[in-house]
């Protein structure tokens, strides 16, 4: 919902004619990533808080291994994000008349970006479920972790739109490296956060 609201606000206030043709690829990439990151931040913070509020967190602690819980939450977040992206990105392209030269690269960038957003925020979500001032804290904690991914994603989408330097998909590789590092670190660190 947040994603849709921002998308409509952006589309309404900027439109597709306000921005000059040469600056379009870069500015659109920035706007798209701002929408994606902030809707991820508003949606994913709930993943562990939900369990706590429903009182199911202790049962989960007893019945499953920490890694299993982590992977389950990760895949849930991932599904959520990919579903969100499959709605937002086509709408964004349509509303803003976003011309993309290298479509495969663009799609790979968005999907690997979704993996990165899920991988970078899951452990943080588990931590804030046990802290006070949850919502604000989640954004404050996640944003620095997601910034490298965001910079890479913006660069990648810009390149995909222009169609220059797309051989080998360099930015997709960077963000996949980010995903692998984040998941590995999270698997190692999550049991520490999870234990009571």
């Amino acid at each position, binding site marked *: 919902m947040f994603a849709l609201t921002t998308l409509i606000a952006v589309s309404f206030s900027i439109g597709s004619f306000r921005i000059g043709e040469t600056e379009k690829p870069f500015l659109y990439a920035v706007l798209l990533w701002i929408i994606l990151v902030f809707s991820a931040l508003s949606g994913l913070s709930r993943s562990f808080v939900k369990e706590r509020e429903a009182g199911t967190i202790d049962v989960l602690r007893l019945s499953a291994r920490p890694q299993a819980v982590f992977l389950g939450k990760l895949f849930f977040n991932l599904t959520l994000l990919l579903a969100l992206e499959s709605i937002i990105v086509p709408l964004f392209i349509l509303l803003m008349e976003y011309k993309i030269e290298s479509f495969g690269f663009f799609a790979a960038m968005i999907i690997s970006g979704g993996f990165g957003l899920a991988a970078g925020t899951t452990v943080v979500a588990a*931590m*804030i479920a046990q802290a006070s001032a949850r919502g604000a*804290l989640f954004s404050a904690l996640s*944003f*620095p*972790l997601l910034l*490298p991914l965001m910079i890479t994603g913006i660069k990648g989408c810009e390149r995909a739109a222009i169609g220059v330097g797309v051989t080998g998909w360099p930015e997709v590789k*960077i963000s996949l490296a980010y995903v692998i590092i984040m998941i590995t670190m999270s698997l190692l660190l999550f049991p*520490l956060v999870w234990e009571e």
Partner: protein
Amino acid sequence: MICKILLITWMAVVIVAAFFYAGPATGFPGETSRIVFFHVPQAWVATFSFLLSMVGSLLYLTKRNPGADYLAQSAAELGFVFCLLATITGSIFARATWGSFWNWDPRETSIVILLMIYGAYFALRSAVPDEERKRVFGAVYSILAFATVPFLVFVVPRITASLHPENTMSPAKPAMDPETLVVFLGSLLAYTGLYLWILQIKIRISKIESFKKPNIGQR
């Protein structure tokens, strides 16, 4: 005591030498290059401090020893202060050299992210009521954040262009003349000494504070 007097004297000598002994480097407008004697040691101390904080976090997670957490927290706080100092001095230098206080050069970007990471670290610590959870979470977050540093150091600078004078960033390259190098290394030493002194005081303060609160150190 004798160490403190020596340190203060050394610091004073370095400051005087920075302005009167070493000449201004070529390629910079006016006297601006003298910032290297203050800005770079500050940045170095901040980096060193964050590294110490990271080591403290790792030690805490493996040993669960409160002392390691005092190190992690004190080093993070001091590193934050020095990082802020480096940002401010760097920004003044940027104004004098490139005409604007802030240019989003990769190093400026990464220093801002560092400040954000440690700001978040302090926010996280203050938001968790339980002492042990607080320490574990702080350690986990600082390790997780450290994992993103290679991206900021190696990847982001490669996809954007830098303004920083490269040979002043690493003293290993012999771009400085001998007098400058001597003062620079002296300043590094002075800053590191000053840092270790403050760090030791901070750790002592954390220990004393922990006695005031019950149920710490007994778990």
